[in-house]
C-alpha cells in the first residue's frame, strides 16, 4: 500500500466484501433490535404492535436474568482460570524434549476437534453418569459414594466439560509462544542464578503475558455464548443453576415462544458482551501494545 494508486485499488477491490459482511451482520442485528421493541409471540397471532421498552424491563427485572448473568460470569471466569493455568502448565511440560511427544500433542489437541454436543454427551453419559459413568465406577471401586454431577454440582460439571474443550486451544497457543522463547534468554537467566521457579515466573510467564491475553480475549468471546453443553447436559437446571444468558434467551424464544422478549435479551447480551470485552481489553489489552 505504498502509493495512492495502490491504496485506491486496494479499497475498491475490498469494498464489495466489506459491504457484504456489513449487511450480513447488520441485518440480523437490525431485525433483532426491531423485534425487541414489539410484542411478538409465536403462539399469539395478534403480534406485531410496538411496545416500547416493555420487553427490556420484563427481561431485566426477571429474577432469572440476574441468576443467569451470575452463572455466565461464573462459567466464563472459571473456564478462563482453569484453561489458562492448566494450559500454561501443559504447554511448559509439552515444551520439554520427551519421547513420543507427537502422540502426546495429538492427544492434547484432540478434544478441540470434538463437537461440543458430542463431547457434552460423552461426558454426560460415559464419564459423569451417576450409575454407569466412569467417575462413578472409580468412586465405587475406591469405596466412595459416586457424585451425581448434574444434580449436585451442575455448574461444576458444565465448567469441567467446557474447560476440557478449551484446554487444547489455550495449550496450543501457549505452546507455540513458548517455542519462540529465546534460548539465550533462558541461559542468561541460568547464568544469573535463577532456579526453575524463578525462571518460570520472571522469564517464561512474562514471555507468555501476551499470548495469555490473546487466549483470554478469544475464549471470552466464545464462552459468553456457551449453549450446546448446557442444552445437552442440564437443560439449564436444576432450576436456574446452569442457565446462562444464552440459554435464558433460548428458553424465552423457543420455550415460551416470546420472540420479542428473546430479542430484547439478545440485545442485552450483545451490550453485556461489549461491556465485558471493553473491560477485558482495558484490563489486559495493554499487553498487546508494541
Amino acid at each position: 500500500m505504498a502509493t495512492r494508486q495502490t491504496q485506491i485499488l486496494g479499497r475498491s477491490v475490498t469494498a464489495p466484501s466489506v459491504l457484504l459482511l456489513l449487511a450480513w451482520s447488520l441485518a440480523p442485528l437490525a431485525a433483532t433490535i426491531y423485534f425487541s421493541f414489539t410484542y411478538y409471540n409465536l403462539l399469539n397471532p395478534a403480534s406485531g404492535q410496538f411496545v416500547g421498552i416493555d420487553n427490556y424491563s420484563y427481561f431485566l427485572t426477571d429474577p432469572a436474568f440476574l441468576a443467569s448473568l451470575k452463572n455466565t460470569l461464573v462459567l466464563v471466569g472459571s473456564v478462563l482460570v482453569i484453561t489458562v493455568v492448566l494450559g500454561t502448565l501443559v504447554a511448559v511440560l509439552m515444551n520439554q524434549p520427551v519421547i513420543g511427544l507427537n502422540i502426546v500433542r495429538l492427544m492434547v489437541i484432540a478434544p478441540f476437534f470434538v463437537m461440543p454436543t458430542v463431547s457434552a454427551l460423552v461426558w454426560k453419559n460415559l464419564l459423569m453418569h451417576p450409575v454407569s459413568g466412569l467417575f462413578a465406577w472409580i468412586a465405587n471401586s475406591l469405596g466412595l459414594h459416586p457424585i451425581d454431577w448434574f444434580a449436585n454440582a451442575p455448574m461444576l460439571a458444565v465448567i469441567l466439560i467446557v474447560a476440557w474443550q478449551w484446554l487444547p486451544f489455550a495449550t496450543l497457543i501457549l505452546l507455540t509462544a513458548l517455542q519462540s522463547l529465546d534460548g539465550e534468554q533462558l541461559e542468561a537467566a541460568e547464568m544469573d542464578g535463577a532456579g526453575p521457579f524463578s525462571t518460570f515466573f520472571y522469564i517464561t510467564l512474562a514471555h507468555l503475558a501476551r499470548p495469555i491475553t490473546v487466549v483470554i480475549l478469544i475464549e471470552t468471546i466464545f464462552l459468553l455464548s456457551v449453549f450446546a453443553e448446557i442444552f445437552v447436559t442440564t437443560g439449564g437446571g436444576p432450576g436456574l443453576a446452569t442457565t446462562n444468558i444464552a440459554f435464558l434467551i433460548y428458553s424465552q424464544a423457543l420455550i415460551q415462544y416470546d420472540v420479542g422478549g428473546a430479542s430484547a435479551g439478545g440485545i442485552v447480551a450483545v451490550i453485556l458482551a461489549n461491556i465485558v470485552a471493553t473491560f477485558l481489553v482495558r484490563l489486559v489489552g495493554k499487553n498487546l501494545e508494541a
Partner: protein
Amino acid sequence: MASITLQGVRKTFGAVEVIPGVDLAIEDKSFVVFVGPSGCGKSTLLRLIAGLEDVTAGQIRIDGVDVVQVPPAKRGLSMVFQSYALYPHMSVRGNIAFALKMAGMNKAEIDRRVTAAAATLNLTPYLDRKPRDLSGGQRQRVAIGRAIVREPKGFLFDEPLSNLDAALRVQMRLEIATLQKSLGTTAIYVTHDQVEAMTMADKIVVLNAGRIEQYGSPLELYERPANLFVAGFIGSPKMNFVTGAPAAALGAATIGVRPEHVAVRPGADGPRGSWSGRVTVAEHLGSDTFLFADTELGTVTVRAAGEIGLKPGDSVRLIPDSARIHRFDQAGRAIRG
C-alpha cells in the same frame, strides 16, 4: 579475578567431536581472545567454561578449583551473549538487577550497585526504559552492565559486537577493553574477527576445528606464527604463501611473507630473489594501497604505505623482505632458526 585452567577438555555432541582436547591456562586479570573461523568451536569452548554445556571429559579449574560439576551461576562467571539476551519485559534497571535479586541481595545494596554500573556505562538516563526502546549500542551496554554488576571472577563474551555497525564496534571495543583493565577482571572474549582479537587481547587463542593452533600475545602470533593456519589467519590482508622452488631455496616446503613486507617497484627489472608480476587490482585506501599482482608464483598481495601510482596492467617487481620471510615444513609447522 581468577585464573582459569582447562585440562584435557573434550566435548562431543553425539558422535560429533567438536572439541577433541584442549589444554589452556588463562592468567588472572588477563584478557584472552578465542579467535578462529566460524564453526571451529569457539562458542562451544566458552559455553563449557560457563557451564552451559557439560564437558565430555577433562577438567576446568577456576582459581584451582575444578568446577565441572558446579552449576553456571555458582562458577562466578558472567556472560555477554551475541544476541544480548536481555529480558525484554524488564526495564534496564530490572535487567541489571536480576542476578543480584536472584542472589537474594538486599535492596539498598542492589540499588547501589545498579546505580554504579549504570554510571560506568552511561546508562543512567535509560534505567527505566525497556530494552526495545534502546539502540543497539545501548542494549550492548545493558548486557555488559548485567555482567559487571555481579562483580564476577571472570567475564565471558561471545561475539558481543557482531550486531553493531562498524563505527560503534570500534568504540565498544575500546570501552570493553578499558573497562576490563580498570576492573581487573579476567575476561575471555570470543570473536571470528582477527582485528578485534589483535586490538583487544593480552593473549590470543587461535582455534581451528576445536584445536588450539597457537596461544600467545598478538605480536607473537603476528611475528612468529606457529604454523600455516595461524600465519594465514592473523594479519590482514592475508599472508602470501609460496611453494616450490623459491621455498626450496630457503629449505622450506612453504614460505610466507606478509603483504606489508613486500616492496614494490614499477618496471620489469629487479634484484635477485624478487618476483616480476603484473598488477590486476589496485585498492586505494589513501593511507595504504593494496596491490594484487599476478606472478609466476600465483597472486601476490602487496600492502604499500600511502599512495603509489600504479594501476591495473602495470608491470611491477615485487621484492620480499628476506628478514621477514616465514618458513614452514611439509606439515605446515614453522621452521625456526
